[in-house]
């Protein structure tokens, strides 16, 4: 089963350090292969380096594509990470 969904990132940090890690953690619970696409570039949801390299800021659109038996659940979990706008702000000092 392949699921594709386009979402707008509302996480206050965009898709950097901690959200990238949260996506990797969330994805590890599923069998589905998940790829995130933004600005014409792909990143595996298992790779914090590739996710960070996308340079996704809050307000950017991201396409989530998951392939596997639990694709739908994986997309839901990742959407939850990227649209978590109550993220705590202890890392606001990040430049």
């Amino acid at each position, binding site marked *: 089963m392949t699921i594709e969904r386009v979402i707008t990132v509302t996480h206050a940090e965009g898709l*950097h350090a*901690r959200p990238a890690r949260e996506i*990797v953690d969330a994805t590890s619970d599923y069998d589905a292969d998940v790829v995130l696409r933004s600005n014409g570039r792909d990143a595996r949801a298992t790779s*914090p*380096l590739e996710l960070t*390299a996308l340079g996704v800021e809050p307000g950017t659109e991201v396409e989530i594509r998951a392939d596997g038996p639990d694709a739908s659940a994986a997309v839901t979990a990742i959407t939850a990470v990227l649209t978590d706008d109550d993220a705590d702000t*202890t890392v606001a000092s990040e*430049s």
Partner: protein
Amino acid sequence: MTRIAGTGVGTGSGDGPAFWLDHHPNITPEPAGRGGEAAEATDPARELERFERGRDAALAELEAEQAQAAAAIGATGEDVLATHESFLTDPALEERVEAEIDAGAPAPRAVASAIQDWIDVFEEQGGRTAARADDLRDLRGRLLRAFSSDTRRSIQDAPRGAVVLTTRLHPSEAARLDPDVVAGVACVQGSTSGHAAILARAAGVPMVVDAGPELHRFQSGHQVAIDADRGLIHDQSEDGRDDDAPAMHDVAATKDASTNTTVRTAAGRAVRVGANVGSGTEAARAAERGADGIVLFRSEVLAYQHGGIPDVETQTTAYRDALDAFPGEQGVIRTFDFGGDKPRPTTQVADDGGTPDQSRPGEGASEQDREGERRGIERSLAEPAEFDAQLRALCRASHQGSGTLVVLLPHVTGVEQVVDARDRLETVAMEEGVAPPNVGAMVETPAAVLQAADIAGVAEYLSLGTNDLLAGLLGRSRDAPDDIDPGTPAFLRSLVMTADAALDEGVPLSCCGELARDPAWARRFVALGVDALGVSPRDVAHTKDAVADLAVPDLRERVRAAADARTNSEVRRRLSGGTT
């Protein structure tokens, strides 16, 4: 006398010259420069091991610092370190490092260059991503420092037949243990449930962990013996002054015993003494030691070896290798027995073992806790895709291998489980165009004992699992069965009921529990009608000796009388009423 005790991992023993991996004074660390190194010939396997070792060290450092940071500067510091940790285990980094190493780069240069690539990508992206490039520089420094302080020898440098000694065996090293090269391992620290222990057990290399700093008294080059069953390490260079360790020599002697003949009771009934194994390699070793086939192949060991459920092809090869170790003889392969004290490994790794799993073993365990209490066949039936894949591999191996396969179902608690599993097996066999293998059921729960006759009616084979049965009868955790006294009326009655059920239904009965290696219990099992005993390869010879020419009738009466006893002390008295 130098003989120290630790905790044994796996079974068996081995001896050879000691080979220390750590703190070797003759090794000069390589300079950690990036680039500039002469184009020397490198061995990719060795460089990859060096990378993994460096990364292990960097990860350990990061974990320690994270704990400190959490206490000292709060969540932000901890967060940064957690990010570094996630970059270190990133598949996108591993792939680039491996590609560089494959192309001939030494580990430090491969790491420097792979991280530089990512620094360039981050800086090109700009913004907050570019700010992360400094984290990568930091990480690169940390890894290169780990290389430059690495005076550890490679496990691949161990001479053939060596006993490897180390403070702590890294998982990446354990994944490279080859039982044909390494006779045994002893560690100052470590635990029997750690990742390295699981891998050593799967490789069939005897290991003793947690031996303490005393281990340093064994110097490189000394002749050392490891006994995993007893958790002992013994310096044989001092033999002649040490009369306290005869066990090691007994073991060496049994290796060559001519045990390739079937043993029979005094009345001429054949008793098979087969092996309990976890890999094709171990099966081959068991064949050398005169085992009569495989009584128990623990397939879950494969999953531990591969850090996840291996694909059909990998499973097929492993099962076929085990069957090929015993042409024309029976090979009993048990389907995955996860649950209880054996969590299912959850991380999938490459089948070639090229990327050892760096995740912490505890992660799998906690996930398992959430999966609940399903065990053995119940769990397999709840995971039909995974179970069918295993049955498919078993059908193919049965067709290709030279031994006769029995598919053994673990932790059976009811007749439907056997019927359902057989239905699936027959469907898969039909799809594969092969004859369905025979099906056996483990009798290792009180439920199975009470229904032994019913279960025997739908199976071709029964196997007593004494460890779980004893724990189940007495309501104990399997983790701590050492102090359980098997001489209880409940256990003996369970044995009698199961043996009678197998006899009435005309189904062969084996016993594959730990108790079978105790000569007195081996004789009792045979007296009750058990046809085959499963023991670790090293116990085959002495178990054959224990049951050869056994006079069954007297002993059978005595064991049956003991089963009728009311108290444990009465059991003891009745069991010891003769020459047992």
